[in-house]
């Protein structure tokens, strides 16, 4: 009876990445789409795999810090901190208090820089082109400060096992206070431009929602988990450095959608400013480096240390055999975990939402692929 050609609709296979302006690096996802709807998605990573973990096995403890700089290349100080803390814990080193305060200040400033970058790129993902320029303008102030402190704008290699490389410049406090005022103004401007913009709200509210249980199941941490209503923050729950002496809020949202994740990060920036303020007040004088042998040789043993990165809970599993080089280093990258529920987040959304969702979980491919 049916003589006419049978017609059928097939899903279109859309290859997004690794060269795509909105995949934040060399991330690739294969989308099966039905019209504009995403039926399924398969993420592919590994395009930036440099074997950092393996490289660590052939490098001395001092050299490893440079490798960790390059994991999450947006939040270098936070990464340096975690590997230094791992070695210090294994060696039982007591870090001088001043060094701890310096570390916290730099890490929190780095968190602001990282979240500003998120803010900018997220605006870009949503199609607004100005936020990224405003955010970079503000970020520039922080980078300049980093340059004055560590000599490098991004790959600092400033933290050492047992402290920091050298004391901050004499005008450090003054400079930080000055840029903090500027940053606050800049952040408020960013807030005004994007946060409650109607189009932005309609693009992000209710999109890519994930509930707390699933999020924990997938191992999400950091702002992505807090957006679901779980107030898990390593700085509070497993305090390190001097965080237990500082007073700050952990912003927690509820719905776990894109806008919540965005909003949390914006709020975290203000909290970080608050932390930096307190640190500047409390910072004592004194040495910035513990008395150590020149070549670090942690005793045999193993340790797992985790810190709150801008992207979540960054952990390092360090196995030492007592030699000058670690036996095994395993990194627990928060972005890696954030990517796992991608299928869950993206199924059934629009193609345009894919970009917004991927932007909202704020991945750094250097850390995902290591």
């Amino acid at each position, binding site marked *: 009876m049916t003589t006419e050609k049978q017609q059928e609709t097939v899903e279109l296979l859309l290859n997004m990445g690794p060269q795509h302006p909105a995949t934040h690096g060399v991330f690739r996802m294969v989308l099966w789409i039905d019209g504009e709807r995403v039926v399924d998605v398969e993420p592919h990573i590994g395009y930036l795999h440099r074997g950092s973990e393996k490289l660590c096995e052939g*490098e001395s403890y*001092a*050299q490893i810090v440079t490798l960790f*700089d390059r994991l999450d290349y947006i939040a270098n100080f936070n990464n340096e901190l975690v590997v230094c803390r791992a070695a210090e814990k294994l060696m039982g080193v007591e870090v001088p208090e001043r060094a701890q305060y310096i570390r916290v200040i730099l890490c929190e400033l780095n968190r602001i820089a990282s979240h500003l970058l998120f803010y900018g790129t997220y605006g870009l993902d949503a199609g607004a082109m100005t936020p990224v320029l405003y955010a970079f*303008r503000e970020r520039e102030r922080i980078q300049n400060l980093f340059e*004055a402190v560590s*000599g490098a704008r991004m790959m600092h290699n400033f933290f050492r096992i047992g402290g920091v490389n050298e004391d901050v410049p004499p005008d450090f406090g003054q400079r930080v206070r000055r840029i903090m005022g500027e940053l606050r103004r800049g952040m408020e401007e960013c807030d005004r*431009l994007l*946060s409650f913009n*109607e189009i932005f709200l309609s693009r992000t509210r209710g999109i890519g929602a994930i509930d707390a249980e699933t999020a924990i199941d997938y191992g999400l941490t950091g702002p992505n988990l807090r957006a679901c209503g779980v107030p898990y923050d390593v700085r509070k729950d497993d305090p390190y450095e001097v965080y237990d002496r500082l007073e700050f809020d952990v912003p927690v949202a509820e719905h776990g959608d894109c806008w919540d994740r965005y909003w949390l990060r914006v709020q975290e920036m203000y909290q970080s400013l608050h932390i930096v303020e307190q640190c500047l007040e409390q910072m004592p004088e004194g040495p910035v480096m513990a008395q150590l042998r020149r070549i670090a040789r942690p005793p045999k043993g193993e340790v797992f240390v985790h810190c709150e990165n801008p992207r979540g809970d960054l952990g390092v599993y360090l196995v030492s055999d007592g030699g000058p080089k670690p036996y095994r280093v395993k990194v627990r990258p928060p972005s890696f975990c954030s990517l796992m529920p991608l299928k869950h987040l993206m199924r059934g959304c629009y193609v345009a939402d894919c970009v917004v969702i991927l932007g909202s979980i704020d991945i750094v491919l250097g850390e995902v692929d290591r």
Partner: protein
Amino acid sequence: MLATLKGLVTTLAWAFRKPVTAQYPKQHLPIQPRYMGFPALLWDDTAGEPFCTGCMVCVRECPTQCMKAEMKDNPLQQEGKSHRRKIIERFEINWNRCILCGICVEVCNFDAIEMSHVHELGGYARAGSRVTLQELLKYGREFQERSGWKPSNPEKNVAGVALAKEKEKRQPAAAASRSEPASSNPSPGKES
């Protein structure tokens, strides 16, 4: 609607403010004093030779293996103008591989290497970034002149001071009477 208007005002306000852009090749933003550019070798004026003795510690500690060094016996030391027994003969840094971590500076015992402020490497040849001893010393000199660099351990590393001290140890009276330490005086050195 309200937020939309706020956003419009925010962007429009910038039309009346001064742009933040710096016109790069015409206008260079100031470099911070601690800025870590590419590593360069420093020059010891008191002896007229580089500080570097070619001890290879930087070569070994470099995370990216971007350096190569060879040492030789120091002729100036035999002449008594320097306290360095060995001196660098060939040194090469591949700046393309350098990651500007500063570990070489940290491990150097002779104040011989320093992160200079050189950072603009544009060129047409890939091998152009393989920098030889002569160039490294040139960049180092520029850095020394511009930044007023001071050696961290002059007694040990600056030839003039070290020789004077050596002499002081050997013949305290003579050293005290002579004001000019190193260059004018052919010291007996190590031959005794």
